[in-house]
């Protein structure tokens, strides 16, 4: 039975391993817990889930598995009716029972319930018709309808297990949360590449001992300090549709600036064309030609584009597509040049990933980047950094 449980967790994409599963079995064997579902829930969580971001997934899987266990074979829906009936009888007052009679009695109520259970596929909360919690349908728990049937609201064991995982308290810890600078910095740290370069300033103890032992006199050795040598070039889209994402971009920018020693940034508008700039107030006076940029920064730089890539596809694909001036070469050409020169190159998009397929320009840009476009969530950023660090 527990193998099913293990497989259920796997099918919910939880990173569980056999070693952890064996640990759980061992714990059960040694009698760490009593025969209580609550305890089993806590124990299996402690043994199998190692990241609070996965608690929500675990809760869902557990809930699904548990419903499966409670099903009595032969009944179509997920909730055993006999069990329900007893439950209902227990919780109803005399008056309520009379009201049920008025509705056509048990028989009819159960018939309707069965019907609805068949119609209803997923879990449901609120609303007026479907079975679930906190609604006004006659079926489901925590509702207001006096003729209602309680499902899954187990009064006698008030702190019942069903409640614990059904609450799904960990849902906002899923790692698509918004980013704070600290989180971003941690994600950016993946890009660290340590190397010793420059003038020898640090005392090299091991080498000194080795060489002293060999030469039989004190022979001091120095070495250069260990530094993060990764080089990052960040190109940020600014203005227009990016105004919605200013806070996020600021955070990303400030985190990147403090994290990398070799960090360069430039701005562009909507799409990369033949020039970029460093200071938005003097963008028309002090421009850098994109050609110069490509020549100046070596191919060992890692390039990060930040932009929503939301524009008319013409702005990318057509010469003269820029909304600001007449560009002789299409933006796509420039993006392609960048991806050709810099093998480590990603695009971070602050728009939520779900809407990408509906915006043509995002699709075009993603294709230009060879699919290396990531959302600016923690998970997305980490994926991007992993790719850059490879």
């Amino acid at each position, binding site marked *: 039975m527990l193998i099913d449980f293990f497989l259920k967790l796997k099918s919910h994409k939880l990173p569980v391993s056999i070693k952890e599963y064996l640990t759980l079995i061992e714990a059960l064997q*040694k009698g760490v817990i009593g025969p209580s579902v609550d305890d089993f829930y806590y124990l299996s969580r*402690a043994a199998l889930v*190692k990241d609070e971001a996965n608690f929500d997934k675990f809760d869902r899987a557990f809930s699904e598995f548990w419903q499966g266990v409670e099903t009595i074979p032969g009944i179509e829906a997920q909730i055993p009716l006999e069990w329900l009936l007893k439950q209902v009888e227990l919780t109803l007052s005399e008056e309520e029972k009379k009201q049920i009679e008025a509705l056509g009695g048990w028989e009819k109520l159960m018939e309707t319930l069965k019907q609805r259970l068949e119609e209803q596929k997923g879990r449901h909360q609120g609303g007026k018709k479907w079975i679930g919690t906190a609604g006004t349908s006659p079926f489901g728990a925590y509702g207001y309808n006096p003729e209602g049937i309680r499902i899954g609201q187990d009064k006698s064991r008030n702190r019942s297990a069903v409640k614990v995982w059904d609450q799904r308290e960990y849902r906002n810890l899923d790692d698509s949360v918004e980013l704070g600078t600290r989180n971003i910095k941690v994600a950016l740290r993946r890009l660290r590449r340590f190397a010793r370069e420059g003038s020898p300033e640090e005392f090299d103890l091991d080498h000194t001992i080795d060489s002293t032992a060999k030469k039989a006199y004190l022979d001091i050795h120095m070495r250069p300090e260990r530094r993060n040598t990764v080089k990052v070039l960040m190109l940020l889209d600014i203005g227009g549709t990016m105004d919605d994402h200013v806070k996020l971009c600021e955070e990303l920018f400030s985190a990147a600036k403090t994290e990398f020693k070799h960090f360069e940034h430039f701005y562009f508008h909507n799409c990369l064309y033949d020039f970029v700039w460093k200071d938005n107030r003097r963008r028309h006076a002090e421009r850098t030609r994109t050609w110069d940029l490509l020549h100046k920064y070596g191919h060992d730089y890692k390039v990060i584009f930040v932009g929503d890539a939301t524009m008319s596809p013409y702005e990318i694909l057509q010469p003269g597509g820029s909304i600001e001036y007449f560009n002789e070469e299409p933006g796509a050409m420039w993006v392609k040049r960048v991806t050709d020169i810099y093998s480590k190159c990603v695009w971070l998009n602050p728009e939520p990933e779900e809407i990408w397929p509906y915006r043509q320009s995002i699709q075009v840009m993603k294709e230009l980047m060879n699919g290396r476009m990531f959302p600016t969530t923690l998970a997305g950023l980490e994926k991007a950094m992993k790719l850059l660090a490879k």
Partner: protein
Amino acid sequence: MRFNGTEEYVSTDDLTLAVNAAITLQRPLLVKGEPGTGKTMLAVQVAKALGVPLLEWHIKSTTKAQQGLYEYDAVSRLRDSQLGDARVHDIHNYIVKGMLWQAFAADEPVVLLIDEVDKADIEFPNDLLRELDRMEFYVYETRELIKARHRPIVFITSNNEKELPDAFLRRCFFHYIRFPDKETMEKIVEVHFPGLKKSLLREAMEVFFEIREVPGLKKKPSTSELLDWLKLLLAEDIPPEALHSKDRKTIIPPLHGALLKNEQDVHLFERLVFMTRAKGG
């Protein structure tokens, strides 16, 4: 050995269970949670409850895994050799035992706390895999294998600054200390300030949970901040009425500096209060 919370530490059911599972199976317990929810205190209290010694190993960004095992003090040996000290002939004199070694060599099982494991370099946990799994390591200088006489009860805390490697996680039990609900919080306060005036406590808790609700705070106040704040309220002898107003949102609670530790948070909070006040007026 079983842990059931102590007089000074309120342990929720799930936490107690995780601790006991770790003790029974002799696996390390990894504890995460918001800062100030009592991760480090847990190890201290477990040691106290079980009546065993506690060894603490605090991790810094420069800590190496090797330092937890032992360090070979080559410099002082070099110096001794030049001064002609007799000690120099025995290498054991220059091997300094680390926390893990001390825990392994102890006569009774001990509680070992590895605090803030995420502060160290990314490779740090990987360097401790065998040590934590088999509870043994090899000393190259003296060619000895050090084996744990009793497997220590290991607690590892993390603030989530770095992801820990999967191989490491698989060897641990895991518990995430959730922010306590009102009921648990009241128990915690009762433990720290027995007999606190009911009225003051009620007012203070409401203010506290309201501040936690303020959207956009960089660092939400946590349990330890609440306890500090109550301490201050008691020390200053602030009457409960001072915390109370018909519309609590229009006053700034006294000594709020103990709850909000970030300048921007204080500004944000004050601005919100002024805005509600302006609306109300």
